[in-house]
């Protein structure tokens, strides 16, 4: 029981219960506005009947069409602690995939911390697989070592042979990804 709707600027004033989570990044205003200006359809929020924000997904479409790399990308996905275990993240992912299908994407991809096992497992359940490891993708601020990311992908119907998700044999550096 959720109202799913487009994320608007005013939601930035109400998303504290989601964003005070330590793994959810609060970005600068330009970052959100860039997504709202360029890919508004990819920024969806779930609202509870009492008006509390439950979670949101933020994504974009990018990549070269001619090289079969046009795809949907999940930039952020977060659900407030009290609204977890309801399948909300899966619902939001499903919506992002459908939008990417409509845009004729070949696949959907996302980056996740290697240590974030809960998320990695959830994405696996949703049909995502590790395409490659990106070394030291997440920079740490407090003197701890930088963390690797998994680049996980799921093929969309346009990629009939599922070529886009064949895992790379070697990890890559952040500067090598597009």
């Amino acid at each position, binding site marked *: 029981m959720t109202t799913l709707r487009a994320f608007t600027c005013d939601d930035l*004033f109400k998303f504290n219960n989601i964003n005070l989570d330590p793994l959810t990044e609060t970005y600068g205003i330009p970052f959100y506005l860039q997504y709202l200006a360029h890919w508004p359809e990819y920024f969806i929020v779930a609202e509870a009947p009492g008006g509390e924000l439950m979670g949101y997904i933020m994504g974009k479409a990018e990549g070269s069409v001619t090289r079969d790399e046009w795809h949907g990308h999940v930039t952020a996905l977060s659900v407030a602690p009290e609204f977890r275990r309801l399948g909300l993240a899966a619902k939001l992912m499903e919506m992002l995939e459908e939008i990417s299908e409509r845009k004729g994407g070949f696949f959907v991809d996302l980056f996740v911390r290697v240590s974030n096992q809960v998320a990695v497992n959830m994405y696996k359940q949703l049909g995502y697989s590790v395409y490659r490891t990106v070394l030291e993708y997440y920079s740490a601020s407090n003197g701890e070592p930088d963390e690797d990311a998994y680049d996980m992908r799921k093929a969309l119907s346009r990629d009939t042979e599922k070529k886009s998700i064949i895992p790379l044999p070697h990890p890559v550096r952040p500067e090598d990804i597009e």
Partner: protein
Amino acid sequence: MAARGHVQDPNDRRLRPIYDYLDNGNNKMAIQQADKLLKKHKDLHCAKVLKAIGLQRTAKQDEAFTLAQEVAVLEPTDDNSLQALTILYREMHRPELVTKLYEAAVRKVPTSEEYHSHLFMAYARVGEYKKMQQAGMALYKIVPKNPYYFWSVMSLVMQAISAQDEKLSQTMFLPLAERMVEKMVKEEKIEAEAEVQLYFMILERLGKYVEALEVVQGPLGEKLTSELQSRENKCMMLYRRLERWAECNALSCKLLLKNPDDWQFYLLYFDSLFHLIDQSWTPPQEGTHSAEGEVHASISQALSFMEDRIATEEAKESKHLRGPYLARLELIRRLRERSCPEAQQLGEPLELMFQFFVKFGDKPCCITDLKIFLDLLTPDQHVQFINRLMEAVPLGAPGEDGVAFPGDTRALQRHLCVTQLSRSLGQQHALNTQGKLGLIKELKAHYRHGLQFGKSCLKTELQFSDMYCLMAAHVYIDLWLETSELNMLWQSLGLLEEGLSHSSSNAQFKLLLLLLYCRLGAFEPVVDLYSSLDAKHVQHDTIGYLLTRYAESLGQFAAASQSCNFSLRFFHSNQKDTSEYVIQAYKYGAFEKIPEFIAFRNRLDHSLHFAQVRTERMLLDLFLEADISSPLEESVKSMSLCPEEDDILWDSLRDNRDLTVLVSWNPKDRQLNAEHKQRSLEDDTLWLRLRSLTLRLIGCVSALTHPPASRNSEKRTENGVAAKPSSLRSLLSQLESTLNQATQFTEKQLQVRTALSSGCCQCQLSSLQLPLHLQELEAAGLGSLLHTSLYILEKCKGDPLEVKDSQSTTQHFLLENLVYFVETVCIVLWVSNYCVSVLRPLKSSLQKKKKKKKEARNVDQSFSLQSLLNQALEHIKSQEISLTALKLGALSLEGQTQSEAEGTFTKMAMDKVQSSYLRSLQEIGELLKKRADTLKSLKI
């Protein structure tokens, strides 16, 4: 600002190193390199601009501006110079100059698509909608591309939105925009989804819902594909506006069949249903019910629709949706509101909620779901309800202390949910003191027992039983509020500290700790707590108030400066940032986002919190620095404080605080409601008014102190410091009336109340009145002021933290009073400084004899001012000593059988408070000492 074009212009090659230096932040080298280049190539204008950027970034704004204008007057048309100037003007926050630049460029090169497009964007940045409209059309005439045409249309819509006169919007701007789009439609030139969106926006704003519906449902509507359910959502909105309830009902039915969990459509389904019933709607004789298909227009249809939804859920083996079950409760509520007997057919709410609990009780959101339907229960059902639910919670056998524990996390979640519901029903509040203490004991036991389930939790995860801990802390607070026993608060703090030690990411623990420490007047621990929340960007506006509200008034000046800076940095970047994305929205055709972004920028610009931190930051700077590290007038000038200008738009202040960020399960009558929020906003606004007037009055005093000879009159008006007595007088009368208003208004507001009762407000007012009296050559002296100050100081005396009969008490308002005292001293000193400067020349005047007397009195007063400060300093010193000597460890918390571990956390909280008080005293003492020193140098 890097590379452009592929053709290597030799100038590009020459400029490259300067760009690189600027990009790498090496501004000095950039300036040097530019100078070198300019020696050889005098006419390489771009080098000048790049040098100006370097100067701007090294805080040489005036030089940078002069240099830039040298190039700008030449009306350059080379890309490099134009782009560099654009960057520079943006960094100078002078976007209006960019428009001048490109106006000249398109005049010289009238066919340039690029310059015209830059000109359009430059206008967009400053919101010159009419000029945008023209620029868009000019562009379309040069290059007939659709986006340019629609930029022009959108500019008309923006003129409509921003017009003061709604009639003008409706009869001129919007119809014109509509006609422009219609022309394209007729010529079959509509290409993009964005263009249809814009057409829809225009029709909607014109109230032409029928026409809008035709567009959405017609061939143009087929272009609306990006957003999911875009056409359905738009149709739904229009059906509602048009009150076409049959279509509204049929469409919500369809959408609910597709997604039976989407709450908004249940609400629309019910709304439309009852409208249809009220209208006695009947289906047409033949054909379909409505354009959207079958319509439900009777309660029996709705009942069977709901039953079907639930039957579908029941048939599923797993992943049941909550929507249908909750919608059934919602329908009961609505039927009851209309006194429909059919409500009973759906079942008894108690039973239905019990069933819901059986299904979903192990989900953390169960409390949030059920909370909104608790009012369906009658008060005499409450106990029965809780008991019924408790029966469905699998607990083990009770232990020695009579508490039975859950065996796994699901059982724990169920038990927790019942506990939360019990609190929401007011059952916890109804307990007496003994009952509450017993409850706390039980909650703590559950909390600690539950920790075993989370042993493998990562640092970033919460413990399963955290909410028990939080609730126990709440019950302690209930007890504290009821009994005023500080021990309860200490216990609450200790418990939360304990919770945090097991669950270091729990934001709720941090938030409540933060609030409680502030309530105790201890700001020091708050700094770390807040920084561990990792609040950033917009959060500085929504929860920044937790920090800035207390820092200064509790005498932690360094922390106060820092926390104001966090917020200010965010607000200042907003204006520049949002404008860039308004431009982006034009580029990507996200037209509906343009008014949204502009409204967002305004919401931040008009933030109450922004006005507060702006004002407090300036006051703080003056109190800490003015006449200590630099003269008052320098400080005032450097913050470009203009006493005659009120920089706060009082009528458009926006309260962006997130007041619901702290979780609570309080019963309805104790929840934060709209009235509380409104009152809090009024209180804060009143306090801001006092502070802002005080600030501007200090600015006035500073302007008066200027020896007129040392400044030429032109410059004085330019700086806005040429305060006339009249503005002083008017500000004073405003301050006076605001104070009167405050006196009548302050039963609840702590900050204003403390300030008023300390006497500082009155004293500041009287001191600020002095210059006026002097100007009128009335006999007025500092004498009475000194008496008042002494009175304020008396109110500061007492121990902020005291241990008596093995009970600790805090009187943190003493700290606040001390801060107000120091602020008042600052103001008195500034005013005295002015008085001296006026009186000194008079000494040698004709009325020598008469004035001599006055001078003599002044000497007296400076002596007594000095002794007042000394007295205050001694008081603070003795407080520091006694506070340091205070042994809180010896404190036994009466009536509490605390375990040793618990005791450690409580002690930790007490130590933090003690240390914080000490630090506040030290900071206040240091400032006062500095003020005492300046008094000596003040040759009164």
